């Protein structure tokens, strides 16, 4: 019997696991995918919002601003790629100027630090590639950019280092209230029991809720499509550039990514299926045209990837953070600014657990740090020293991002080792660059095969069933 089981290991489940791993609790995380961060967490705008969007008094407002502060702190402790580059919300006409005035007031009320309104001249001086149509902007210096999957991974890894059990490939299929209190969960990897359950199942959080409790909210999956552009476009803007938000979301943004690329998107479309991450020609065209209103000279010929993610929008206006049944806590409907609010949501969840009677006693020996080698960021001397220690760091596997075999092998020995080529990509950036794994893909397959002692035909691109190779050739590579 676990003290607590967390369902889902996206950013919310990972943050909850990290938070609970500070205490003397027996915690397990059940994730249906073969890796952490397999849903919304890996396909979004990768922004830590400042917190001026949510209306004052909402849970979103409170947790966004707090989450923003915590993100900066966690990034330092857990080696999460993050930078507070600041954001601009552009106004193009009188209505927009009214909107940014309103957002400014929200920001002040929500406690967003150093937020201010800029004139058109000030805005263009900060961002020379913006449209000359800009009439003014709202500037929030505390907005940041982050690697969302590494954020989730860092939190989950640290949780595992501190004793949390992570069970991958564990799709929860039934939840039953135990007569003596607590819950029994049937999953694709076996049966688990816990005194308390935290539902962090993202786009499927309504379905998970409904397994345990009577329905009281609905997720309306909403897809957003993106362009990711080559690093040659990565300095087109230096802040997160928003347009004024509308009823459907924060609109199409243009932003540098923490990896040095340019991200452009998303649109917003209800898709019914929470796993439908396909891109569409019309969606991408809308994104391109809308983004050009902010930054007319983006060179979309330098696109290296399109992707889409699905927001866990619910039929409620605010985040759904509730004890739906005794010791069954929903962290649901975590739409934007969910990534930004994640660590604050986790603290909120821990507080609810405590209120429900689960004692939170701090561990004496909580490991609260994490470091990994990022070869390309080292000085020549550091590179040399590392290669002397381990020659694998001298072998560049991904030429676009300068990722070495040493980094890949090190990732395979972390608490949550990658099980796929994309898992390697999320950990060390191999294959994330302009050739999109064209050159390094076969080499990563070889390393996964060698280190995992499995034939290359069993190496996965991504989730279960995504095998890259279908068999040997007639000669099987023999001469």
């Amino acid at each position, binding site marked *: 019997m676990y003290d607590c089981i967390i369902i889902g290991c996206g950013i919310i489940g990972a943050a909850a696991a990290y938070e609970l791993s500070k205490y003397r609790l027996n915690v397990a995380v059940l994730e249906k995918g073969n890796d952490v961060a397999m849903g919304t967490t890996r396909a979004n705008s990768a922004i830590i919002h400042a917190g001026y969007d949510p209306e004052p008094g909402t849970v979103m407002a409170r947790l966004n601003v707090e989450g923003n502060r915590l993100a900066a702190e966690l990034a330092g402790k857990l080696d999460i790629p993050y930078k507070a580059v600041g954001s601009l919300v552009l106004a193009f006409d009188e209505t927009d100027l009214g909107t940014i005035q309103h957002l400014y007031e929200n920001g002040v009320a929500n406690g967003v630090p150093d937020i201010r309104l800029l004139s058109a001249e000030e805005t263009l001086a900060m961002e020379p590639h913006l449209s000359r149509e800009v009439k003014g902007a709202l500037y929030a210096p505390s907005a940041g950019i982050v690697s969302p999957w590494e954020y989730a991974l860092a939190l989950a890894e640290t949780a595992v280092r501190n004793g949390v059990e992570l069970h991958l490939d564990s799709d929860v299929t039934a939840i039953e209230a135990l007569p003596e209190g607590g819950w029994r969960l049937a999953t694709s990897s076996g049966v688990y029991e816990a005194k308390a359950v935290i539902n962090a199942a993202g786009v499927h959080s309504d379905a998970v809720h409904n397994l345990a409790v009577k329905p009281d909210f609905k997720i309306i999956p909403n897809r957003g499509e993106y362009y990711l552009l080559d690093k040659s476009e990565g300095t087109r803007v230096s802040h997160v550039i928003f347009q004024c938000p509308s009823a459907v979301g924060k609109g199409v943004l243009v932003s540098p990514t923490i990896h040095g690329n340019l991200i452009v998107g998303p649109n917003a479309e209800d898709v019914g299926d929470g796993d439908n991450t396909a*891109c569409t020609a019309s969606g991408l065209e809308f994104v391109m045209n809308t983004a050009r209103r902010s930054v007319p000279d983006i060179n979309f010929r330098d696109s290296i990837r399109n992707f889409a993610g699905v927001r866990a929008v619910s039929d409620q206006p605010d985040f759904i953070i509730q004890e739906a049944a005794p010791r069954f806590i929903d962290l649901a409907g975590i739409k934007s600014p969910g990534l930004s609010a994640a660590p604050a949501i986790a603290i909120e969840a821990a507080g609810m657990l405590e209120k429900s009677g689960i004692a939170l006693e701090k561990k004496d020996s909580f490991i609260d740090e994490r470091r990994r080698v990022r070869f390309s960021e080292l000085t020549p001397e550091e590179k040399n020293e590392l290669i002397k220690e381990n020659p694998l760091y001298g072998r560049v596997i991904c030429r676009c991002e300068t990722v070495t075999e040493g980094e890949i092998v090190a990732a395979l020995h972390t608490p949550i080792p990658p099980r796929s080529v994309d898992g390697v990509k999320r950990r060390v950036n191999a294959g994330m660059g302009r*050739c999109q794994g064209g050159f390094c893909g076969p080499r990563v397959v070889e390393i996964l095969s060698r280190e995992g002692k499995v034939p290359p035909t069993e190496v996965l691109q991504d989730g279960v069933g995504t095998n890259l190779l279908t068999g040997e050739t007639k000669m099987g590579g023999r001469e």
Partner: protein
Amino acid sequence: MMKEYQLIVVGGGPAGLAAACKAYESGLRDILIIERDKEAGGILNQCIHNGFGLHYFKEELTGPEYAGRFIDSVRETSAEVLLDTMVLQVTEGDGGVKLVHCVGAKDGYQILRAKTVVLSMGCRERTRGAIGIPGARPAGVFTAGAAQRYLNMEGYMVGRRVVILGSGDIGLIMARRMTLEGAKVLACVEVMPYSGGLTRNIVQCLEDYGIPLYLSHTIVDVVGRERVERVVVAKVDENRRPIPGTEMTFDCDTILLSVGLIPENELTRGAGITMDPRTNGAVVYENMETSLPGVFACGNVVHVHDLVDFVTQESQRAGAAAARHVLEGAADAEGAISVETGGAVGYTVPQKIRVGNLPGKTCDLFFRVRRIFGDSVIRVTAENGEVIAQYPREHMAPGEMEHIMLPKVRLEKAGGKITVSAEEKEENAQ
């Protein structure tokens, strides 16, 4: 002080090997080739089909055989080959010395010094993201070259039922290769109204195996959750936009992309060398020298070639020029003619000609046209509009590189710029 090489060649593919051999032949002795792979030969090592060398060796070789000849030639020189080593940066040091920053498992991170550098890093394939194919993103979408590596180097199949997008040569070669390995290649789909590959490959790799080529078609949807399950293909209009109602569905588990090659010039850009947006390669002079004196470029890193034979010849010019730079001093950069393009000529290499620096009586000029030409003429005009050279052609296509030799005597009187254009003959007659 650390050793200073006369020449460092970045990349040990066909271009780098030929440049190094020629530089040795032209008198250089301290030559280093740096290759990131475990062996030299570059992309030719995975091109196990034949058809290489018909122009240069007047015989038909496979890719590894063609590369092997140059690897053997390099062995007979004093050139060193540093394998498994990646060049991260090329910079300029005091007195014009070139600093080549590289990293390898054996020697760690080091900064090597050279009087001259030849850049021959080759090219990479355009990806799905570059052309924005809509649909899901399951496993089973490969660039043709990556698939070729899996089959020919690693010995693994990438799929059983295949649709190929793009009719570049690698895609065509892979259509045949996959078929010979027992896969079913359902279609080759090309968005343009003409093929991007060599005619001989259309015949030998598609027609001979009954694989349909759909010109003016593209993929409009990819379906599949884990692995590709099917693709939807539609006809496109003259603006390359899909025409509703023309959709065809193919049940397949694999998509191979052969949608173009991009010269791999991150080092070149990093060194501050002037680039040509039309080729995505460096702007080069008649001797393949870039805007940075003493740095030369050749092969697919300059412009994408159709045949390796031409890569060899171009690279020999670069190697000879590097030797001349070391042994006789820098070329006089004054009075360079700039080569402009007109009439559906996409680009030229070289883009600049220093007539005084030409070693022979002619200047080789390469280019590609942007559409299909029938009976036509290539015309070179001087700055004052006077035609200084004409070359008749029966047929020209974007998939095939054009080569003309400009007489030095005509260039001497051409002024500050010349224009290369192509016109169909019927048009002139009117």
